[in-house]
């Protein structure tokens, strides 16, 4: 893009070349988790609990084992004992111990010579249950008299007198809350609820695992982080990390849900029991919805004080979140800091509790905790703007966080772009379109910290002057293209001459998964540093050839050049020439960088949505949708726009129709995409995007990370638009037609 070049002076960064994985994916050549097969491979199936909460009295596997073709069955008795903390959580979720804790909880697994046989064998495993009382709603789970799901889960932080299902409590704040509230012209307080939603990635979990009697194993798996797979499987199975080699597949979406294990230890345990034959295990969609993901459900109290001019004087939140039957899974630790992150408010108080309930073990989902927090806080800000007749963008400009302001959760912001997103939203044509009958407009801002994390990257120069980059962060959103662009920019060679590969656990130091919007930031930063090393070595090779000091060589346009007054006059030596003779000039040329990446820059966004609500049915149609977000620098703008649009669409689904529906028996009623209603393409307008670029000073090219912020504003923005269209303020998601229609009728009296 010519415009980007002018602005940045970059040759490649800011352009939109073809994605390196595009042809593979559209031709079917890309290998996803279920595409791996090995000679002698067995297929596995999992037996899952039909009950929300029950004691396992007996598991009889004899009929399954008697079936011809069945090679192994595993139950919890096959796993080591003595684990604690999150390792025990992982093991408890991999296979239930003495109790099943949610509908879909794995109880046993079986491997057979075909997938059909494995399914038949799974049906022959007889599990005897004693059904126990259950609870699935977050508020009901901590109400007096709620069944205690697990004894002794509360840690030191939980105040006395709370229900035993309350596992954690946290609180922080600053300023004088009472004085702040007293200074306000109006103080309003409401409770908001969000339902659990699933990440909804298109590719179900799939893996092939192989492990011998000696405990040495190998795995091919669809994951966001194969070192996590290695560490977690090793812990659950009681083996050493070095004995498990994990290779990631292409990945059909993850959104945080593939940063942990579900079926992977089962494939390895079955393989070991089956004499080391490889075992493939692929989840069905219903298994994915019942037993993986989802995010937490939340119930949230918010109190705000505001002056008539829109100045926010004080804010207070109390969040209750459940993340399933396992401690530590609800994102209260992220939701609280995100709650007021978009604001600079003199007095704030944050409190939250984590509650356990008979639901699947929650996993990370795109900006964990932030969308719920935004729904609560941004909804109340919007309600108060409407009450006082104030423009929602002006109120956010007035109270919004700025460069250098102290964040709501403690540290000072350095360079951030919230104000720029608000100004761009205000100036956008969408903000001026006149609204018709039954139409409404909503505005909300959102935030995500972004993340650095453990990162290890290697780069090697080829004999022909091309470069290969080995990274450890699976590409779920365009990181290979973006890292390729940055490396090519740095080396001064064409984008097409750089190939970036996601490599297995044996090839690099430990990498955290692709999570926290960190891959392009952290692996990108490390790749640039690795390229810097390689360039230094190439300059040394040229200097040696020319017989000059290496300091007298500079690198530009893909070649070493003599520089300075005493360097001498030598023709430039290109990366191709240096690569061609590297064997005789000192051996292979490579670069390597590993770091726990620092210099993370937060990303803020502002969304504007217009909806129309059918007053007779309560059905909401999204008319137009605008995402404005700070990318720092958009390395590959098409991917950045895709992240903005994808985040908005997931948020729209969460706001309008997605929800976990539980029956009175505690069973999930809608574990299929027919009834778990993610938006389909025809439900949506084209999502408009504006990329704001306030470069992050902590990254060589200004990258912030863009993947997560986009899911945060849609929840409150859509609720605000529906309120504008109907006059009915709905404080619980989803805004499903029955709920909206009832609210419209109630508002009319």
């Amino acid at each position, binding site marked *: 893009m010519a415009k980007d070049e002018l602005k940045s002076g970059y040759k490649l960064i800011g352009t939109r070349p073809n994605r390196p994985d595009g042809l593979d994916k559209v031709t079917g050549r890309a290998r996803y988790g279920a595409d791996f097969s090995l000679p002698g491979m067995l297929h596995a199936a999992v037996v899952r609990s039909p009950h929300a909460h029950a004691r396992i009295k007996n598991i009889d596997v004899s009929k399954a084992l008697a079936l011809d073709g069945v090679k192994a069955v595993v139950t919890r008795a096959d796993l080591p004992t003595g684990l604690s903390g999150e390792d025990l959580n992982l093991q408890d979720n991999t296979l239930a111990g003495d109790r099943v804790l949610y509908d879909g909880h794995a109880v046993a697994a079986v491997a057979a010579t075909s997938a059909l046989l494995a399914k038949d064998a799974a049906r022959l495993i007889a599990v005897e249950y004693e059904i126990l009382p259950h609870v699935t709603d977050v508020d009901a789970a901590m109400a007096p008299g709620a069944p205690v799901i697990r004894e002794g889960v509360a840690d030191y932080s939980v105040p006395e007198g709370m229900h035993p299902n309350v596992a954690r409590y946290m609180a922080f704040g600053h300023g004088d809350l009472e004085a702040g509230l007293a200074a306000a012209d109006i103080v309003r307080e409401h409770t908001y609820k969000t339902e659990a939603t699933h990440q909804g990635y298109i590719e179900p979990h799939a893996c092939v695992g192989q492990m011998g009697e000696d405990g040495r194993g190998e795995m091919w798996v669809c994951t966001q982080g194969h070192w996590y797979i290695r560490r977690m499987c090793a812990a659950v199975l009681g083996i050493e990390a070095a004995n498990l080699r994990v290779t990631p597949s292409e990945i059909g979406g993850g959104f945080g849900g593939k940063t942990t294990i579900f079926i992977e230890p089962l494939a390895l345990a079955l393989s070991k029991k089956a004499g080391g034959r490889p075992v493939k295990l692929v989840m069905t969609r219903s298994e994915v919805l019942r037993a993986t993901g989802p995010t937490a459900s939340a119930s949230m109290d918010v109190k705000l004080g505001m002056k008539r001019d829109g100045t926010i004087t004080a804010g207070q939140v109390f969040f209750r979140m459940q993340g399933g039957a396992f401690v530590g899974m609800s994102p209260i630790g992220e939701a609280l800091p995100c709650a007021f992150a978009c604001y600079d408010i003199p007095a704030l108080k944050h409190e939250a509790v984590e509650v356990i309930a008979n639901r699947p073990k929650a996993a990370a989902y795109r900006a964990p905790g932030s969308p719920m927090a935004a729904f609560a806080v941004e909804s109340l800000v919007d309600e108060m703007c409407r009450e006082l007749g104030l423009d929602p963008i002006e109120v956010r400009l007035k109270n919004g966080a700025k460069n250098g302001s102290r964040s709501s959760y403690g540290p000072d912001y350095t360079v951030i772009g919230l104000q720029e997103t608000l100004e761009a939203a205000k100036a956008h044509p969408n903000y001026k379109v006149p609204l018709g009958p039954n139409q409404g407009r909503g505005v909300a801002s959102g935030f995500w910290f972004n993340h650095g994390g453990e990162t290890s990257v290697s780069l090697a120069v080829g004999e022909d002057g091309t470069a290969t980059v080995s990274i450890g962060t699976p590409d779920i959103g365009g990181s290979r293209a973006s890292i390729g662009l940055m490396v090519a920019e740095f080396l001064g060679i064409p984008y097409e001459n750089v190939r970036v590969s996601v490599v297995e656990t044996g090839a690099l130091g430990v990498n955290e998964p692709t999570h926290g919007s960190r891959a392009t930031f952290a692996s990108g930063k490390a790749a640039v540093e690795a390229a810097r090393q390689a360039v230094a070595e190439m300059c040394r090779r040229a200097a040696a050839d020319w017989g000059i000091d290496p300091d007298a060589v500079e690198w530009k346009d893909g070649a070493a050049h003599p520089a300075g007054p005493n360097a001498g006059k030598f023709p430039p030596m290109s990366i191709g020439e240096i690569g061609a003779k590297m064997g005789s000039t000192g051996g292979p040329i490579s670069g390597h960088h590993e770091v726990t990446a620092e210099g993370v820059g937060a990303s803020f966004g502002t969304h504007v949505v217009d909806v129309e609500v059918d007053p007779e*049915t309560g059905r909401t149609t999204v008319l137009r949708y605008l995402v404005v977000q700070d990318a720092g620098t958009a390395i590959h703008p098409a991917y950045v726009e895709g992240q903005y649009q994808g985040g908005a669409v997931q948020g729209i689904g969460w706001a309008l129709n997605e929800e976990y529906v539980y029956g009175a028996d505690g069973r999930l*009623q809608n574990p299929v995409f027919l009834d778990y209603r993610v938006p389909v393409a025809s*439900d949506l307008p084209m999502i408009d995007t504006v990329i704001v670029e306030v470069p992050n000073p902590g990254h060589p090219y200004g990258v912030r990370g863009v993947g997560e912020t986009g899911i945060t504003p849609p929840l409150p923005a859509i609720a605000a638009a529906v309120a504008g269209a109907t006059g009915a303020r709905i404080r619980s998601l989803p805004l499903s037609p*029955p709920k909206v229609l009832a609210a419209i009728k109630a508002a009319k009296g």
Partner: protein
Amino acid sequence: MRYHKPTSFTDASAIAAAAPGTLRFLAGGTDVLVQMRAGMVQPDDLIDLKHIPDVGEIRQTADGGWRIGIAVPGVVLGAHEGLKRDWPGVVEGMNLVGSTQVQGRATLAGNLCNGSPAADSVPGMIAAGARVEVTGPKGSREIAVEQIPAGPGKTNLTKGELISAILLPPRGKNGGDAYLRFIPRTEMDIAVVGCAVNLRLDVDKIIEARVALGAVAPTVILSEAAARAIIGTTLDASALQALTSAAEAGAKPISDKRGTAEFRTEVVGVLARRAAKIAYDRAKGQGK
């Protein structure tokens, strides 16, 4: 599982009559195959009907009606100019079922025999006064479509009986029909509520009407009260109000994951009004 592919309905009926265990017929397979893969049903006998001659044909009968083969998929109905001209409500109902891929296989007969109260093609057929030809051990007979469903997943067909054709009556003059469903999304969903209206005009006045309500009871309902509410009217405001009340009164819905009983009751009235207006316009030769 035994897989059969008979070449006549008589043979199919004989195989079905002799089948000792769980039996399923296979036309488009868009319900049966999904149910088998989900483990909901494991048939002992699966009888594929697509090898019977003429099951893929649509023929106009001597009286001006239509005879539709039991394996005619939705996409063929949607491309048939004569059917779309005569019975647009029936065709649009069928065309709402599933995705483009599903439309390439799914059939009216299958949608009817799956027994879902939310089946999108069934209200339109009932409102149209469609009948089915049933072949059984004792020969064949014709019965009204509304006599087939017995409840969710169940039909009134007896052992050895199967549908051998769908029969639509002659359209005649000054008639129009329409089907509407409510879903929260725009496609790829199951009707939370459905309603079909078929009517005939004498100039501006409605002289015949049939109103069918979907997904508000264990089976699709043919509401005579709703029809009476508009017969003799010009579909003015008071007629629409009476239609709304009659449709609401006729609904006996449940609350489930797809919607509440209260919501379904309210929306069936809304859809009845809206479908009646479309059918009325079509009868006047206006609208599509």
